[in-house]
């Protein structure tokens, strides 16, 4: 692994990410939007690889590109009565455009303004591998890990409870 991030790879992946997000919001078909979200998640996995976070890239592909995309597509299909309902009216929402432009502008300004304090371009060379990541996760962060699995269990049971058929 090199000690810098290649500008070409970063540009290509960030174009894929932002372009996918723009297309997700621009398309009027909900099913197409779900597939654009899938593309954004895959490009994000590539960005994690650039940052030498291999485990996170794997988890991103498995969880987001795999299960979340399938979950979204199933929900879209279950809540559409006709095929034509997938195509929605154009919803520009000019008020939210103004709010988001202000928010994003101030965010970018803050990054440019206060980012000068960070050393640009250089990257620490030593990168722990996946084995070191697992060791840290299961020793130093073992209790939060167990709590996280409890959160997932409760969320699973709650989702089954809410969406369950003839229960209530």
């Amino acid at each position, binding site marked *: 692994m090199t000690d*810098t*991030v290649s*500008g070409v790879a*970063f540009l290509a992946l*960030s174009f894929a990410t*932002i372009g996918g*997000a*723009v297309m*997700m*919001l621009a398309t009027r078909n*909900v099913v197409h*939007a779900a597939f654009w*979200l899938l593309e*954004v998640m895959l490009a*994000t996995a590539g*960005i994690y690889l650039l*940052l*030498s*976070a291999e*485990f*996170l890239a794997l*988890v991103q592909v498995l969880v*987001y590109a795999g299960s*979340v995309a399938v*979950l*979204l597509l199933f*929900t879209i299909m279950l*809540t559409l009565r006709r095929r034509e309902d997938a195509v929605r009216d154009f*919803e520009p*929402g000019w008020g*939210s*455009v103004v*709010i*988001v432009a202000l*928010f*994003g502008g101030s965010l*970018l300004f803050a*990054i*440019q303004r206060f*980012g000068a304090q*960070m*050393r*640009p371009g250089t990257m620490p060379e*030593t*990168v*722990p591998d996946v084995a070191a*990541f697992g060791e*840290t996760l299961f020793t130093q*962060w073992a209790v939060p890990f167990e709590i*996280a699995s409890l*959160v*997932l269990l409760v*969320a*699973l049971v*709650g*989702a*089954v*409870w*809410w*969406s369950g058929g003839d229960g209530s």
Partner: protein
Amino acid sequence: MTLLQPVGALSFMTLAAVLFSLGLYGALSRKSTVMVLMSLELMANAININLVALSRFSAPAEMTGQIFAVFSMVVSAAEIGLGLALVLALYRQRKTVEVDAMQELKG
């Protein structure tokens, strides 16, 4: 600064800021509940990029950012599962997924 130079943490933060803004726009402007949930996922994704990038550029040996990103992924996966279950439950009662149809508690 040419385009082909190695990029630093600022570029990743800018990317995450743009992604977050796009997700915020979607969450504010869409009228379909599923689209709102997808935009929320976009925002969570931007935050994860920020966590991983800052961890990589400042202190990669501790991996705190990566661990936080894992927990953040757990929470957002639970959130999307519960959100979609809620959408299905509401659809069963109302036969619609429009946000505008769910305003009974509006003051």
